[in-house]
């Protein structure tokens, strides 16, 4: 126990330090050079201070969004991979982000014309879509009292994904050309939120999910060995699985409502982390969240500066940077 505590400290300090470094550096970098002295100059009214606006309106919310989305997706990926005992599981395996995509597509195609507390109708209905998908998966998984069967969950998830994707394509096909373009672009992910409202809206859900995750590491360790083995060691498998399912889905839904689906983070970050810290979930979960945040802030930095003034969709950058990096780690290890 002492030993794990020591390793946990090292892991959190290491990955946390990396995240802190990224959080401090990223707002200083961008396509325009700004003066920090001017940005923090209280004497100048905020509305007349371009440096302050670039720092506090354009960069800071964007970096915080990247941290929140990256951390949530990576953590959700780690949980799904353990819960489903499948290394290929991602935050989308159970259809949550496909449900979110359908919600966003409906909002775009039917021009839902409302906004609540600075949140666009697209964000709101993608969140509704994610929660709807989660509800369906949860009902399917608990329909039979015996608890969740991994195989059933996986199959249900794949089916839901296909179903929602087909509905999304159907709506897309029937809609206006400009709307189709917007929808395709939404599916590539974007972090330029332009205000703190989307973050504040997603924060309560994310906080609830993080609180639920706190009790998960030990049960997940045992569940990844097999449900029976876990039950024999005194784990309430059914309860732990439900907790894992709901928390990971909440994380995914909240993240997707901010940025749209960002590919690859949820799949690959947990694996990178496991290559570094091993498979103990007491280490994997916090390290995934911390490294996911770092990774996405870094990718978004590339997305917004590499081809400036043109921006790349961040979902493209994550796979282009993450893919080769992950392959290199794999090869080096074997």
């Amino acid at each position: 126990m002492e030993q794990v505590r020591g390793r946990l400290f090292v892991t959190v300090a290491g990955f946390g330090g990396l995240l802190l470094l990224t959080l401090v550096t990223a707002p200083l970098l961008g396509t325009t050079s700004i003066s920090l002295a001017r940005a923090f100059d209280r004497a100048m009214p905020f509305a007349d201070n371009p440096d302050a606006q670039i720092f506090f309106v354009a960069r800071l919310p964007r970096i915080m969004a990247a941290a929140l989305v990256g951390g949530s997706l990576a953590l959700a990926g780690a949980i799904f991979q353990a819960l489903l005992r499948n290394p290929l599981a991602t935050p989308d395996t159970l259809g949550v982000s496909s449900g979110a995509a359908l919600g966003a597509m409906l909002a775009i195609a039917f021009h839902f014309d409302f906004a609540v507390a600075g949140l666009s109708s697209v964000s709101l209905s993608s969140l509704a879509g994610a929660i709807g998908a989660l509800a369906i998966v949860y009902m399917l998984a608990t329909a039979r009292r015996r608890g969740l069967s991994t195989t059933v969950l996986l199959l249900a998830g794949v089916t839901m994904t296909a179903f929602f994707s087909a509905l999304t394509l159907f709506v897309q096909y029937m809609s206006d050309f400009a709307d189709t373009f917007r929808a395709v672009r939404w599916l590539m992910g974007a972090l330029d939120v332009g205000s703190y409202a989307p973050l504040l809206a997603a924060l309560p859900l994310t906080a609830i999910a993080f609180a639920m995750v706190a009790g998960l590491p030990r049960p997940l360790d045992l569940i990844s060995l097999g449900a029976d083995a876990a039950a024999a060691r005194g784990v309430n498998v059914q309860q732990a699985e439900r907790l894992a399912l709901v928390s990971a889905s909440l994380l995914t839904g909240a993240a997707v409502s901010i940025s749209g689906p960002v590919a690859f983070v949820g799949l690959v970050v947990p694996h990178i982390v496991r290559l570094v810290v091993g498979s103990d979930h007491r280490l994997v979960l916090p390290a995934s969240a911390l490294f996911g945040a770092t990774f996405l802030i870094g990718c978004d930095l590339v997305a917004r500066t590499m081809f400036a003034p043109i921006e790349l969709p961040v979902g493209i950058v994550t796979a282009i940077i993450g893919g080769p990096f992950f392959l290199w780690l794999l090869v080096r290890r074997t």
Partner: protein
Amino acid sequence: MKRPVLLVLAACLTVAAADAVPRRVVSLIPATTEMIFAMGAGSRLIAVSSYDKYPPEAMKLPRVGALLDPDTERILSLHPDLVIVYGTQTELKRSLDRATIPYYSYEHRALPDIMATVRAVGARIGYAAQANSLASSMERGLAEVRGAVAGRPRPRTLLVFERDRATLQNIYASGGYGFLADLLDVAGGDNIFADVKQQSVQAGTEQILARRPDVIVELRYGESAKNVDPSRDLRAWDSLGSVPAVRTKRLVILVGDQYVVPGPRIVQAARELGRALHPEARWGP
């Protein structure tokens, strides 16, 4: 022996010549549909695309799909003798080739290309003179707009054609290439993204804050033209208070399909854009 062969050949050539002027034209692009109606050749059209909304007469014609979903079977069954397709519709072109139906391949480009297309389509359907006078009158109209704003200070302009309502997410603006960029130039504005040689630029908030436009013009067309409420829709920009356009409240919404259909109504679009950028200039009725 030779003479009958020649006669048959001559007869064939005559038929071919008579057929050379298409009388059953299908237009799959709203811009070319508008051109054909404007040059007075509307009676030659037998079908249009599902995006066509102007002029009202076009709405009465059968609709045979559009850019991504042309109804090839329906098009073939109408026995057209010319189909105006978009450059990227390769599948459709292949089907038309197999059916030996001639097509005219069109693509959106810069502003002068609109007049060039008017002339080319007109010549192709036997309306060369009418097309020429239409194109010339469009050129005169654009020159008038240029004249009206000449010598006035040109405001640095952000021309937005796509944005999430209520937030500043997913902003797409005109880059330095294409008919919208040219239209802005004619209307007396300097595009803040002129250095990006693309038709569209995803404009991040940092870029907008750094490039400091004097005027922000948003275009609303198609479905997004419904429920336009400028005071509510423009509120999202308030968070970029250091941008001159926001501080001096030079934020404009222009509504209508004429801004995005590169056809004859582009002259009207240029005039309205010019009026929005230079309200103090002298504008005719």
